[in-house]
């Protein structure tokens, strides 16, 4: 690292400015960003699977259309994020290889199965809700291309959470069976959603440096608390019960106190032992491998055209 570079880099960060691709930056900053952005992108594309699972069975044509648009948005978000990562000097094909070989990860929430139609509502409401809590601060991340990609993502995501809530609201005001379906989905998705914010602050290793670099703006526990405070009143509106016996509103603090999730489960899922880890990755790898001959054909065609133009 060159002398003086460190000063102007940190000065920009401290002034809440933006670092752009051509700026000098510490190795660690670049590597941390590549990993974070890539894993965010991987999460978007793996996330297409649990929801894509229900497109063919959506119980009304309007719901089918909304779900298709949502899953398609996720593909688009993956594309924006891979593009942002590429500004740091990596290639999307290499990042995909790292995903496929298990060397880079994606959000552990997508290793859970979608078992009923209500799960689609729960994912929109809880998972997208948690993602929004995580993502809005990233719109002010110090790295320009990532911040800009996040602004675009957040704009498009505004309808994702609403549609999930609307699905559940309809179920909760429907038949007994529908209401039971909604409660069951909340029972299964509540704890994994809390785990989306990562381990507790006391156990989180990289946070301090990421905060100093303007990549991380708030702590895991802060964001988790924010999510709980937003979400519990919404559950009340739906008329379903959060599966936490210890959940209480604290008049003094104005926050909900809640039971911490069992982080042992999070560690198992991150290690590869969640219900759907192998399936999610296998599906993704198969799509990629099945598509190889298509990509090769497109490249071959492009080359033939170039040769033809050259000869003309």
């Amino acid at each position, binding site marked *: 690292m060159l002398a003086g570079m460190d000063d102007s880099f940190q000065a920009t960060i401290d002034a809440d400015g933006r670092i752009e691709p051509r700026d000098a930056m510490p190795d660690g900053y670049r590597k941390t960003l590549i990993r974070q952005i890539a894993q965010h992108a991987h999460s978007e594309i793996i996330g297409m699977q649990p929801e894509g699972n229900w497109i063919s069975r959506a119980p009304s044509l309007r719901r089918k259309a909304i779900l298709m648009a949502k899953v398609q948005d996720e593909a688009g978000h993956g594309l924006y994020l891979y593009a942002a990562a590429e500004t740091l000097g990596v290639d999307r094909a290499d990042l995909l290889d790292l995903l496929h070989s298990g060397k880079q990860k994606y959000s552990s929430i997508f290793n859970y199965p979608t078992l009923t139609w209500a799960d689609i509502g729960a994912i929109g409401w809880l998972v997208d809700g948690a993602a929004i809590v995580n993502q809005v601060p990233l719109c002010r991340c110090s790295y320009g291309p990532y911040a800009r990609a996040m602004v675009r993502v957040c704009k498009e995501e505004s309808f994702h959470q609403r549609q999930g809530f609307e699905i559940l609201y309809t179920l909760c005001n429907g038949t007994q069976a529908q209401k039971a379906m909604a409660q069951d989905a909340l029972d299964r998705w509540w704890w994994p959603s809390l785990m989306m914010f990562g381990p507790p602050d006391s156990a989180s290793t990289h946070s301090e440096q990421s905060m100093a670099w303007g990549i991380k703006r708030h702590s895991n526990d802060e964001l988790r608390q924010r999510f709980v405070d937003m979400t519990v009143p919404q559950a009340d509106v739906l008329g379903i019960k959060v599966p936490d016996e210890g959940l209480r509103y604290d008049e003094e603090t104005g926050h909900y106190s809640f039971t911490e999730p069992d982080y042992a489960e999070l560690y198992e899922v991150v290690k590869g032992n969640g219900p759907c880890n192998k399936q999610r990755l296998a599906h993704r790898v198969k799509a990629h491998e099945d*598509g190889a001959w298509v990509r090769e054909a497109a490249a071959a065609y492009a080359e033939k055209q170039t040769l033809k133009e050259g000869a003309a």
Partner: protein
Amino acid sequence: MNDLFTYTLRLGDDALISAQRTAEWIAAAPQLEEDVALGNIGLDQLGQARSLLQYAGQVEGDGRTEDDLAYFRDERDFLNLQLCELPNGDFAHSMAKLLYFATYQHLLYEELRNSPDEMLAGVAGKAVKEVAYHVDHATQWVLRLGDGTEESHRRMQAGLEAFWPYTAEMFESDELVRRLAVAVDPSTLQDEWERLVMAVIDESTCSRPESSYQHRGGREGRHTEHLGYLLAELQHVARSHPGATW
């Protein structure tokens, strides 16, 4: 029997069943850009289906909604072309299917835009722009796969031939389309369709499929075995909770 209802159902079922098959590519396409593109195409097809099925229900006059028609009819009551319900196969197969079907739809909607029936004309007016894009998308891929590598050429040829025996059905004329003034008689579209499709096939370096036996029956509700499975998946949740709102 209500002619306009039946005719609208044919077009609506074509679009609905096609949308169901197109959507199967989401999260399974050869590259992310294609997940997005096929998502668009599927949404267009589904949008056409919804408009047409809604209208069909109104025309029938029994209070049936788009969802009643999509989720609570049995196989023998669906009037889509057999081509639409066939499994996607590999990517080349799907592009062959899209080339055949979207080219037909484009010619159909271009004529239907001038229908004295305002609703059909309106749906067609919007759809014709969407379907022009579908034709373009299929064309770009048929060219690239036909004139790409040896493997892609082989697969593209196989796709074009696999669906060829289901193409004549698109242009079947019958008493109904002849007596229904607002309808487009699809037999009038066949020559132009063939000219357009063959031009793409020729340019792709694939061979024109040889004439073969042509399957039919979809317009009378006689389908392939594939439709049953497709509908079982499509309808299962809705049918498990009859009368429920989603």
